[in-house]
């Protein structure tokens, strides 16, 4: 189980949050073509390593957090505000 350090509430159990998917995808401009929206809605990487993702603290402050999480070790490298640019993912730890 993840323990997510919420910047507003402190460290909380994963069960208090709702996973809201890949935070690396930006919604295209409204007039973008169908292909651009299809990419936004359907195309997802499945990285082994660092992943930038949305978690909403639904049982707490209801704020949306941007997490940089390692998909194998589950290490959380950063918890950011939604508009923050994630720091360059840390180097892969030896595994």
């Amino acid at each position, binding site marked *: 189980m993840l323990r997510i350090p919420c910047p507003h509430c402190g460290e909380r159990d994963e069960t208090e949050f709702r996973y809201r998917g890949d935070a690396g995808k930006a919604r295209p401009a409204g007039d973008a073509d169908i292909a651009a929206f299809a990419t936004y809605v359907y195309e997802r990487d499945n990285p082994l390593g660092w992943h930038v993702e949305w978690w909403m603290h639904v049982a707490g402050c209801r704020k949306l957090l941007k997490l940089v999480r390692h998909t194998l070790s589950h290490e959380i490298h950063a918890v950011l505000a*939604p508009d923050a640019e994630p720091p360059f993912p840390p180097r892969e730890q030896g595994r």
Partner: protein
Amino acid sequence: MPGPARIGRGLLTDGDRPVGFRFDGRELTALAGDTLASALLANGRRLVGRSFKYHRPRGVVTAGPGEPCALVDVIGSAGREPNQLATTLVLREGLVAESQNRWPSLSVDALAINDLLSRFLPAGFYYKTFMSPGWAWERLYEPLIRRAAGLGRLVAPAVEHPAPAETVHDHADVLVVGAGVAGLAAAHRLGACGLKVLLADQDVTLGAGALLEARAIAWREQMAAALARLPTVRWLPSTTVLGAYGHGVFGALETLSPEAEARFGGLRERLRVIRAKRVILATGAPERLIAFPGNDVPGVMLAGAALGYLRRYGVAVGTRPALFVNNDEAYEALFALHGAGVRPAGVIDPRPQSLAMERARSLGVEVHAGAVVASVAGRRAVRGVSVANVGGGHRATLRADCLLMSGGHTPSTALAAQLGAPLKWQEAIAAFTADLAPAVGSVAGAARGVFGLAAAARDGDAAARAIATDLGRAVNSAIAIDLPADPAATPLAELWEVSAPGKAFVDLQNDVTTADVRLAYREGYEHLDHMKRYTTHGMATDQGRTGGLTGAAVLAKARGVPVSRVGALKPRPFAQPVPFAALAGGEVGEHFKPKRRLPLHDWHEAAGATFVRAGLWLRPLVYSGSSGWEPVLAEARAVRSAVGITDVSTLGKIDVQGPDAAKFLDFVYANTFSTLAVGRARYGLMLREDGLVFDDGTTARLAPEHFLVTTTTVNSVAVLEHLEFHLQTVCRELDVLVTDVGDHWAQFAVAGPRSREVLERVVTGVPLSNEAFPFMAAGAATIAGVAGRLFRISFSGELAYEVAVPARHALEVWSALIAAGKPLGIRPYGLDALNTLRIEKGHVTGAELNGNTTADDLGMGRMLKASGDHIGRSLARRAGLLAPDRLQLVGVRPVDATRRLRNGTQLVAASARSTSLGYVTSSTPSAELPGWVGLALVAGGRARIGERLLGVSPVHAETTDIEVVSPHHADAGNTRVRA
């Protein structure tokens, strides 16, 4: 002393408190503090079960939770519970237990024939044998195998246990797993530094196992007293840490003592979810078996287990024990038994010499150095052992009634491995160990391969010091480890198996032999985890604690590589079997899910409502206890002909405020809200970004920058989250605040041609004429003296209003409305009548908003705004979502009005019956028209209005002629709502 084998005082048993119990129908007596295993051994019972596959007689092998053989059924007032470990089951007065996997009785087992047929039952036997014919698996093979295989039987309990388990949440600075010497020293050090410590141990007593050695008893008592004085140290007895889940989270299962069980109302188990900043794994190193022919005969057990039974319970496991070991630590059992007056039959040790061997010789024990056990005489009990030289050749035969074995000790690395720690081979102890990253914690004591009491205690203390420093605590160095020096010991000699004829087991619980492992290798299963799955080695409930590494070593030998190359079995949670009841905790039965109740729940109940669960809500279905459609139709007819009132408080209600509120709603809704006037409401359709319909509802503009959004009952949580998500991402620049106000407002629909008359009697401050308060009007109003809101919206298709008041005033307002409507024939109506009315009107709900439908499919394509961005705009225009043959919403009616409709009925053309054109989504007997009416999703449905189709329901063996009609069965011109 109850039981003939009880030769002394045990540290855990109370000689003054005899306890009666029954095993396989026989009344026996033991002592308070005994486990079922020690009680049986005290009574001279060796044979306690039959093995899994070959039905061979089996006895007690261990004295703890790694027991592979002594599994029993316990019969209590609540029924039969299988697979209870006799070695950890604390005896209670009147306990009734039965052996497993035998028929008709333990000593005569018909399926023991499997043992004689064993050459035909090798590893992979099932895979190879039951291949064909295909039909035979289900009808013949599986029933036969099910009968023969398995351990305990699951029998449904006679009575439901009211509260068998619960989940408790714990927080600590440091979790110390294991209360042996290392764990005790660590907990003491951490507690002395003021850190909050949880000390979890599976045993009922502190300092189990090694601490029961005579030379450490004083230190153990001193530590126990010191820990009790430390306010921040909490000892959790009978608590097994089941798994490590990362981020400092651990799961543990606590078995309650009889006293705690009584206090907690019969609670038996407690699942603990522990969060700790650091962990110290002082989990020890269980002894492992040696694979030699006959190593499963009752009476063959681990040497450390024999020591445990003597020290803890005062029970001698035999009167003439032989010892077959490869390490000096295991001799402690022999010395202890000798000291208690038991005459050993002899020692068999593959090593040429050792310090412990010399000591045994000096006690006058017959010692066979450089020797192994080649076979065991006896079937239901050990009668003797045959000793061979290490290089082969018979050496001697010993008469013995039990054989104590030890192949060394294997550090428990399961939890460390779950935390991602790599395993390292330690030549000196012929086993793997693991280390944790400092940010996680550390491994200490025997679990790290540090054997010897004083050494392990010092190791635990060192680990604790490092962690305390790391957590910013000053380390008080005044604590000394006051333990006698560890005796010098000769290193062990690797010994995994004895090559001699006969079955030598590496997994006693799953009946896996050395031959099975070699067969797996020959058939290509070279990887340890493949061998495991092929042979089932290590897959039983004991997870191969006693023989896991032994099996790996046999595989290594077959492959011609060192054990370190083969690795160890991957340990997964849980560390021991966990009852489902413990995982469910208190969330069972009535408490499985929380119930959301309406503000007027009690009124509805008193009015005779039958309730239905809608999501978490309890909603009145119909105000009648009787099934059937008549009461429903009576409620619906009241609405169509006069007036009815229904509780719609379950609707989601979201307060939307801010300068950009209108702009935001234009983006989240597919239709426009910025043009909505203050004091008006509009039906809104939300799409998902993929262009399909998400939810619908009515949204009212209360002030220029203040809206109230309503959602469907089931989607209220999802819609709120959807809005909040977009406000924090795509719409970040908008100044809007959304707030859930669902529970604050009680909301009632008053519907029917006479609804205005009812409202006029209770509403003040708002003129209700059609001109002053037209269809889709909304605004503040005082209802029965309560400040609230009034909406002229209609789900039923009749002239209707919805009133909203703060929920604490629900009863007074509802009662006033009922009283005002009484002369007009008002009736409360439930969800069923509500559904009848909306189906007649052609309004959609969850059955049609099913996540596969577009606005156009539902006949609302024209609602989508022509310009401006909104969620789902782009993808809603995909060709596939605009195809004319998509399933579209239509109305359906049986041609013969005496026939009924059913939800899910497939619709086909009479000319092409094998092609489904769609299905009925909702149906009801009509309050207004003769017979049934329904809604359906039909391919190109709107173009088929007027056609006839066949409604086919194979499960009901029904075929009905269906007419496709407009979804608006009632008041297609929409005149009533505007009346």
